[in-house]
C-alpha cells in the first residue's frame, strides 16, 4: 500500500505481524477480512460456537453453507480464500481470563470486537500486562466507537468503564523477503513497535460515529489515576 507513512516498510511490518482478532462477527469479521486483504502475516481468530442464521446479515466471513458448523472454521476458510499466504490460527474459544494471556502474548496487536464486557476486560488486563496495543471497537445500533489503548499512553478500558451495569445487557447487536522479515521482526519486536507508532492518532482519543446521521467526531478520553488495571502502570 503506497500510502504516506506506510509504504514498503509498513507492508513488510504487516506481513511480519501477528494480530489477534476477537471475535469475528459483524465488526471483527470485517477487521480480520481487511487485515487479510492488506497483507497481515498471521491472524489469530477466537470465536466459539456454531454459525446461526441470525449471524448472516452482518458477518461477512460467514456463509449460508456453513450454518451449524463452527464459526471459526468458516472464518478461517474465507480468510485463506482471500489471502492464501496468510497464516490463520483458528481458536474455537472466546477470550477469557483462562486464555487471554496465552493468546495475547503471541500477538503484536489485538483487535477487540467482543460482544461481552467480560471478554473485553480480560483482553484489556492481558494487553496492559504485556504492553500490547489494543484496538477497541464496538457497535450498538448505528453507533460506532473506536479507541486505541496502549499502556502508559492512553486510558485503558477499565479507566473508561470502571463498573459493571445492567444496562450493558441491552441488545446489541515480495514474498520471500517479507517472510524473512516476518521471522526476524517477530524475534526483535519491531512489528509491535510499528503498530504502536501507527496507532498514535487514535491513542487516548475515541472515535464516535453515528452512521444513521453520518456524523463523526473524535474526543479525548482520560486516564483514571486510581484505575485498578493500569493505574500503577507506566
Amino acid at each position, binding site marked *: 500500500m503506497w500510502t504516506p507513512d506506510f509504504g514498503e516498510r509498513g507492508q513488510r511490518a504487516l506481513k511480519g505481524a501477528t494480530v489477534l482478532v476477537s471475535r469475528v462477527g459483524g465488526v471483527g469479521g470485517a477487521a480480520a477480512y481487511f487485515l487479510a486483504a492488506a497483507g497481515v502475516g498471521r491472524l489469530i481468530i477466537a470465536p466459539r460456537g456454531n454459525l446461526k442464521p441470525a449471524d448472516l446479515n452482518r458477518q461477512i466471513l460467514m456463509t449460508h453453507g456453513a450454518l451449524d458448523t463452527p464459526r471459526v472454521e468458516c472464518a478461517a476458510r474465507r480468510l485463506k480464500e482471500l489471502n492464501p499466504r496468510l497464516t490463520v490460527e483458528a481458536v474455537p474459544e472466546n477470550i477469557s481470563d483462562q486464555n487471554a494471556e496465552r493468546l495475547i502474548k503471541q500477538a503484536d496487536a489485538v483487535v477487540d470486537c467482543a460482544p461481552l464486557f467480560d471478554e473485553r476486560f480480560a483482553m484489556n488486563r492481558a494487553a496492559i500486562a504485556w504492553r500490547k496495543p489494543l484496538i477497541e471497537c464496538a457497535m*450498538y445500533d448505528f453507533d460506532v466507537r473506536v479507541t486505541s489503548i496502549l499502556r502508559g499512553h492512553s486510558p485503558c478500558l477499565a479507566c473508561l468503564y470502571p463498573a459493571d451495569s*445492567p444496562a450493558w445487557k441491552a441488545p*446489541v447487536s515480495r514474498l520471500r523477503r517479507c517472510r524473512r522479515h516476518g521471522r526476524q521482526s517477530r524475534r526483535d519486536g519491531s512489528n509491535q513497535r510499528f503498530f504502536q507508532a501507527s496507532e498514535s492518532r487514535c491513542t487516548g482519543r475515541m472515535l464516535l460515529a453515528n452512521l444513521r446521521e453520518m456524523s463523526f467526531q473524535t474526543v479525548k478520553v482520560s486516564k483514571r489515576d486510581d484505575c485498578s488495571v493500569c493505574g500503577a502502570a507506566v
Partner: protein
Amino acid sequence: MKLTILYTGQARTAAGVERETVDVSAPRSVAEVLQILASKHESLRAVLLATDGKAHPSLMVFVNEEQTRTDARVDWKDGDQVMLVPPISGG
C-alpha cells in the same frame, strides 16, 4: 438556562431522541443534570444512574466535547452541549 443534551448508544434508545434541549435552573454539577434527565425520562434512569442513585461510574460525559467527571461542578452557559456516552460492546 438551556442545555443541549446529545444522547448516544443505549441512552438514545432509552430517551427516544437523538438530542433535546433541556431548560434547567442552574444545576451545579453534571450529576445534577443527570438526575434531571432521569426524572424526565424514567427509562434513562438505569442507563445514567447506578443502583444507589448516583451517576453511573461507567457513563462517560462530555461537556462541549471535553470529558467531564460527573461530580464536577460546571460553570454552565446557555447552549452548552452535554454528550452522554454509555458503554457499548456490540461486536
